[in-house]
């Protein structure tokens, strides 16, 4: 059977990172996180391409329990409502499935947060697409988050970049993205939703691996400057790892 894997069981909901309640001045940091990873360890990645048959290109990405699917349509005619643009246009749409989060959503239509994530996604991808070749055409990128367990925007950016490559849209480079959260003086790479919620702040970095150009950098919450720098470095390392996996999967598809 192709592309088969055994999904890992969800961690028990009650498990939290160990907290020191003693009055010791020296706090002992847990070596391993709730799911057994080290601080600088990525979650297990699963990538697939061409999963939406009617799209020009598509990709599916899992980071353990974060699951994201992306479909790319285009190049096609630009919308008549928008102003004339000789250069190509990239339009990104990110939506959370109603069942993506632990509490099911009853909202219909796009929320403000989804609109913001869509705009951030577009900024992250635009620099990588050769828009000068897509004369007076548009490319639509649709990302649907099927399950959100932390690192959602990073997964969306990575997945969208794979889908664009799968659609044979000419790109300057792939875009790999990674998130890091800062909690208790420790920087954790690729945090789960629980780790993100417990963290004081988090950083997302999206980078084009071959030129090491950062296309998106998003910081949220409170981050001491030393930790912020360490978090960004960790993200860049994480992105390098993600980029290697993206390349391997894209090249494997060529032989099929």
């Amino acid at each position, binding site marked *: 059977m192709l592309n088969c894997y055994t999904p890992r069981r969800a961690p028990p909901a009650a498990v939290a990172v160990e907290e020191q309640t003693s009055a010791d001045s020296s706090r002992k940091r847990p070596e391993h996180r709730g799911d057994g990873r080290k601080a600088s360890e990525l979650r297990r990645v699963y990538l697939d391409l061409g999963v939406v048959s009617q799209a020009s290109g598509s990709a599916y990405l899992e980071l353990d329990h974060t699951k994201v699917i992306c479909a790319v349509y285009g190049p096609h005619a630009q919308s008549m409502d928008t102003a004339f643009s000789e250069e190509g246009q990239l339009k990104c749409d990110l939506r959370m499935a109603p069942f993506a989060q632990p509490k099911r959503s009853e909202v219909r239509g796009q929320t403000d947060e989804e609109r913001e994530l869509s705009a951030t996604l577009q900024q992250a991808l635009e620099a990588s697409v050769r828009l000068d070749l897509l004369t007076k055409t548009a490319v639509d990128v649709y990302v649907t988050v099927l399950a959100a367990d932390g690192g959602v925007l990073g997964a969306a950016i990575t997945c969208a970049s794979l889908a664009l490559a799968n659609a044979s849209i000419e790109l300057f*480079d792939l875009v790999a993205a990674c998130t890091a959260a800062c909690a208790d003086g420790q920087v954790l790479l690729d945090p789960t939703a629980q780790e993100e919620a417990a963290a004081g702040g988090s950083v997302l970095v999206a980078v084009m691996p071959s030129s090491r150009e950062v296309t998106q950098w998003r910081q949220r919450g409170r981050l001491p400057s030393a930790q912020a720098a360490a978090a960004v470095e960790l993200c860049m390392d994480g992105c390098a790892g993600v980029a290697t996996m993206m390349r391997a999967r894209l090249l494997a598809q*060529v032989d099929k």
Partner: protein
Amino acid sequence: MASTQLACPGDRLGRASEFTSGPGTYTRGPHIFASLVGPVLQQEGAEGGLPVITVRGGRNAQDQVIEVGDVVMARVTRVRALLASVEILCAGETVLREAYNGIIKKEDVRATEVDRVDMGQSFRPGDIVRARVSSLGDARQYYLTTAAPDLGVRWAKSDASGAIMVPVSWQEMQCPVTGVREPRKCARPDAS
């Protein structure tokens, strides 16, 4: 370089001093990089120039993009006094996944006697026309031209019988069933 080398966007392929950048690649600084996923191919350079390095992608997205000068096949949707509206269906050899809008203005129908063109005698809705993109136009449509002998109506149905008509001159098509002639700006048939 092995003949079966595969590349991903962003992979460095060679030096710009040794190769020319072809489709699927781009030049940045002194190097040439891939911009598609696929096998890397080397071809002879033009007239003893540097060899051309290209990457062949799977489904070529660039084929869906129309540029000025491209020859396209379009279906006429509306005919007005000053222009005919068309839907562009094919660009070169590629069938477009989604049609683009285009117009053929009265002065672009033919090369001679441009002010005496009667649009109703040049095109009818439903005709398939071979045209060339003369300009990117505006937000709504491309501007096309049929002002050349090899451009114009390639396929049209007879009003009388519904049969597919045959061109008899650059200005008339004839129904093979009834013999009735209808005015069109015809494209010269390809030499078979």
